[in-house]
């Protein structure tokens, strides 16, 4: 059984006590309000980076110079509204080209964004993350928080990144030395949702070309949609190669979460509220943390904080537990 479930049983927090009384409706209303600012930010970012309105009207895509730039989240560059390029698509385009076998441009971009904010991108700046967030809000009698094999399955995204984003486009090439974007071609439901379906609706010629591959990708999208209703962000947890890359930076990124151990009362409220099944008291910068901020809001003692760190000096709102301890020992 998952540890999160164990904490559910042994919970003695004031919030849990509240949930047992008739104030349940009031609590659920509060929870919705808590997530609203993040969803607004996600929606605004999605709208800004997909604001080529003419594309949606004419069934074309944007062809300007901005497409040289990558956007931080999963955002298919064939979406009719897309102004920038998907880093995963760009990576495959460069490593699969005959001219280059390594992309300093995209690796540098992923390093820059990852080292700056880590998986904050997943929580706040990814259009497909928003899509899954909204799908998970659809009521269903029994939502699945965790299941047997959940943790090992999370390693799948790293394997997908290595095989489908790097190795296959790099080595499985045609006579001209060009490789296909295998992740986009065989797996990515983002391209189907953001580009395939809109373009096929708007463009009759493309509709005529859709065959087995489109049906295969449509099936993956439908499975992703159905699973997203049951499980929180299944694509992010198990499949997304971009999340896999950013996760490696979570521990060292400039923007970090912090736990003040002197304030933490181990009530379990943070791990209970986390939909990615992270326990912030064990590691508040876990590989799986998408930095949605729910744990911080749920903490009754405000032990969790976040902010930018520069040269070991905290710039956020409260002190680090690690920063406090040496001062105390110095006094004694």
């Amino acid at each position: 059984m998952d540890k999160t479930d164990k904490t559910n049983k042994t919970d003695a927090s004031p919030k849990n006590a509240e949930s047992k009384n008739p104030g349940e409706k009031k609590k659920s209303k509060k929870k919705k309000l808590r997530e609203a600012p993040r969803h607004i930010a996600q929606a605004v970012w999605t709208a800004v980076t997909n604001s080529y309105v003419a594309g949606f009207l004419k069934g074309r895509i944007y062809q300007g110079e901005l497409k040289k730039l990558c956007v931080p989240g999963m955002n298919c560059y064939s979406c009719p509204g897309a102004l920038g390029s998907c880093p995963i698509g760009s990576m495959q385009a460069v490593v699969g080209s005959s001219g280059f076998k390594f992309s300093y441009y995209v690796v540098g971009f992923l390093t820059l964004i990852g080292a700056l904010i880590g998986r904050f991108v997943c929580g706040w700046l990814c259009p497909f993350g928003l899509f899954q967030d909204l799908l998970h809000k659809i009521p269903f009698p029994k939502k699945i928080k965790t299941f047997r094999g959940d943790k090992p399955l999370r390693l799948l995204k790293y394997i997908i990144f290595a095989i489908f984003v790097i190795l296959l486009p790099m080595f499985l090439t045609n006579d001209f030395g060009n490789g296909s974007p295998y992740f986009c071609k065989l797996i990515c439901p983002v391209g189907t949702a953001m580009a395939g379906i809109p373009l096929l609706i708007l463009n009759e010629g493309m509709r005529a070309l859709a065959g087995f591959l489109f049906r295969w990708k449509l099936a993956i999208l439908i499975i992703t949609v159905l699973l997203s209703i049951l499980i929180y962000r299944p694509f992010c947890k198990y499949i997304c190669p971009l999340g896999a890359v950013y996760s490696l930076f979570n521990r060292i990124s400039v923007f970090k979460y912090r736990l003040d151990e002197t304030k933490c009362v181990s009530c379990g409220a943070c791990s209970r509220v986390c939909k990615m099944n992270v326990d912030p008291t064990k590691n508040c910068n876990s590989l799986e943390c998408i930095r949605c901020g729910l744990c911080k809001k749920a903490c009754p003692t405000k032990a969790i904080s976040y902010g930018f760190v520069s040269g070991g000096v905290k710039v956020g709102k409260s002190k680090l537990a690690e920063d406090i301890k040496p001062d105390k020992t110095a006094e004694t």
Partner: protein
Amino acid sequence: MKPKVDLSKILLTSAGPLLCIIGAAAVIFGYLRGEAAVILSKAIMVCMECIGIG
């Protein structure tokens, strides 16, 4: 008594800013050697693989 210097903590806090600089340098280097042009040439055409046609 002075607090002990924790080297791992210093590494953890300095790795982020350092990688940001390395990342930015790699972006510039990649741009200058023409990678952005490859991305642009791919991204301005409808990606048949992405939409599930080609």
